[in-house]
């Protein structure tokens, strides 16, 4: 599949949050205002792109040649946890302003199932190194898109009258459901029409 195809697939057609349910916890938890949603979104893009590249290397250079692919789950989650820690330290050193913006979101990302999810999906789709990287990046982009839309909607919802039991989390889920309904317009046919 071409790189553009992968990009469109992971941003729109298989949007991680709205069609695959990966990364729902931050989607509901961190979408209360736009600023933190954007911070979380960029941190996720960063980590997902790096993580899918790193896990590709682990899978194809270590696990497969040694015939120990059954250790996949354990190694992947450890690599992701270590990577997140490393990224946190590097950002802190090189760019304090960026660290200030993303810092508090990075530890949360380790247990974001979207990161392990993209690593597993990339391996199961037999992507090469660059394709894995693009897949990770675009899945992160899709996450940013969804969480950004959600946070702007929720900021407006704060001003509206909502039945008391539905306030907060329930209305966020219902809003997400309606967004998912809209995202159903993007399907495989769109990809075919766009890039043949």
């Amino acid at each position, binding site marked *: 599949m071409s790189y553009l195809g992968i990009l469109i697939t992971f941003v729109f057609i298989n949007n991680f949050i709205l069609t695959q349910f990966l990364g729902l*916890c931050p989607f509901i938890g961190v979408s209360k205002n736009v600023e933190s949603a954007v911070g979380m979104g960029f941190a996720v893009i960063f980590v997902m792109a790096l993580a899918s590249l790193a896990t590709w290397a682990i899978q194809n250079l270590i696990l497969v040649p040694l015939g120990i692919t059954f250790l996949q789950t354990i190694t992947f989650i450890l690599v992701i946890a270590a990577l997140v820690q490393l990224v946190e330290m590097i950002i802190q050193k090189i760019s304090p302003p960026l660290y200030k913006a993303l810092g508090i979101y990075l530890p949360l990302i380790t247990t974001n199932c979207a990161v392990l999810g993209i690593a597993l999906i990339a391996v199961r789709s037999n992507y090469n190194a660059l394709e894995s990287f693009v897949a990770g990046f675009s899945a992160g982009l899709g996450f940013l898109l969804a969480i950004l839309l959600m946070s702007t909607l929720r900021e407006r919802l704060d001003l509206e009258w909502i039945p008391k039991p539905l306030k907060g989390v329930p209305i966020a889920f219902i809003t997400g459901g309606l967004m998912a309904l809209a995202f159903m317009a993007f399907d495989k046919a769109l990809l075919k029409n766009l890039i043949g």
Partner: protein
Amino acid sequence: MRIMQEFTKGLFKENPIFIILLGLCPTLAVSTQVVNALGMGAGVIFVLLGSNIFVALLKNFIPEKIRIPSYIVIIASFVTIVEMVMQAYIPDLYKNLGIFVPLIVVNCVILGRAEAFAKNNSVGHAILDALGMGIGFTLALSLIALIRESLGAGTITLFPIGDFSGTLRIPVLSKAPARVIGLASGALLVMGYLKGLFNWVGARRKEAVK
């Protein structure tokens, strides 16, 4: 008294899905069929039990600073066991659940219980806590799956036993199901309204106590 409480708190009062909102991703993704929900629930109960027991046993040996990575390794080992057993004995279910089996690792319910409960309590209490939370998770998951499958496909899929094929058909609904409930958006809508219902019941109870 306290022993019973450790078990029952996970069922309703601190239900992981509806009250504390943990472990949402697998919940919504695998709740398309009741049988998937039960399989996922069984996997989570096993991993939760294993990780709670080990964390409670090792609580005095794990250094404070690296406790989270240690918990993750313990959890990942049990998830690998589940993965292998499922792949060997129930390959159909394994295929249905897809990447959500390895993703049990990042199910926040499990890490959450290790961090919030098992590391401060004895093995016995940790076992009860794991069973309660695991069963609470499974019940909530099955409830969502039951609603989604019966409205979205008009069927209820369970295990095939003897002559029974494993699928119940609901007479009127299976002819004209509301397909959208079975799709992604339906999952989010069902979850939203259920959570609203739980909030409403909770608020009414509080008022009744007053």
